[in-house]
């Protein structure tokens, strides 16, 4: 192989390595964010249930159950994403959850509701607005990246294949 042929191949390998590490970063950050969000809500699930209720989309009697479902999805998906185990599936569930939340926020804005998003419990307070929709959309893109291109490096899935 000549030097001219080897250079593009090396460039491709380098960019592929950078891409893998970017995916790793994306996956771990996304998982970390979800674990952080769950921790903020776990301290008082009823308070989070109240935040869910503020969207006025669900009946009052099921708010705590729905709230706990969200919290535990965040914990399980967050852990799997950080560990890189079943990362694509975890990102898929995360993406679905995030998409549902974006739709809920848009409908809240459309109905003129001035409410807290409750995204991180009491740890990071922010109201529902275009800022929170944009932030959540970034999480959706991060989840999509993991679904499409996989967990990147340092994942338990790839470790298991060796």
């Amino acid at each position: 192989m000549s030097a001219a042929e080897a250079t593009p191949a090396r460039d491709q390998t380098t960019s592929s390595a950078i891409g893998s590490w970017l995916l790793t970063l994306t996956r771990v950050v996304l998982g970390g964010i979800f674990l952080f969000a769950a921790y903020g809500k776990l301290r008082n699930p009823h308070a989070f249930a109240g935040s869910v209720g503020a969207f006025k989309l669900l009946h009052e009697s099921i708010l705590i159950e729905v709230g706990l479902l969200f919290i535990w999805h965040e914990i399980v998906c967050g852990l799997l994403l950080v560990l890189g185990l079943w990362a694509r599936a975890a990102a898929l569930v995360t993406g679905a959850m995030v998409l549902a939340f974006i739709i809920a926020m848009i409908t809240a804005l459309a109905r003129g509701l001035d409410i807290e998003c409750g995204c991180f419990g009491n740890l990071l307070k922010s109201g529902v607005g275009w800022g929170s929709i944009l932030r959540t959309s970034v999480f959706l893109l991060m989840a999509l990246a993991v679904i499409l291109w996989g967990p990147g490096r340092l994942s338990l899935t790839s470790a298991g294949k060796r």
Partner: protein
Amino acid sequence: MRFNLHIVLLQAAVIVLVSVAAGALHRSLVPDLPTVELLPEHPEVAAGRPPAGAARPDASVTDPVAAEETGEGHAEGTVIGIIGPARAFELFESGEAQFVDARNPPDFDEGHIPSAINLPFSAFGAGYPEQLDYLGTDLITVVYCEGGECESSKLVAQQLLMAFPELELKIIGEGYPGWVDAGHPTEGEGTP
């Protein structure tokens, strides 16, 4: 970008099932919020003439007159009286009551009932808000928010009852706007 979609979907289903199971188990460990019954205490409200801007009646609000006529159930859980600004002002002047402002801090800073404690619902997200240390459990606690359709008062009242089951609670149905419209005193940055 090559991956087996069937396996990913199967794994996603397992993740959902595990999360649902964990959530259900957790639910069995979390105590229920105290059940509260909102009963209009103000004569005008009880007579079926809610003041303008009063909280929208919902399924948990019982009209005591109608309930007596139909023989329908007694109040379940803790009764919280919905009062108007006039009754709230009576309590304010008597010194028998403390006021809890359930609105967000910026609204509270703009103006609130004098000496009210700002305790928005979101403050309970951390578990035990430090504002609870300033509550006197021997006083009537009057909670208010934005009035109209605001549910913050009820949510805060439920959280207060979790912390202090014996607390005597009342809610200003018309909220802070009703208090201001009635010309009662306020304090805060927006107060002249």
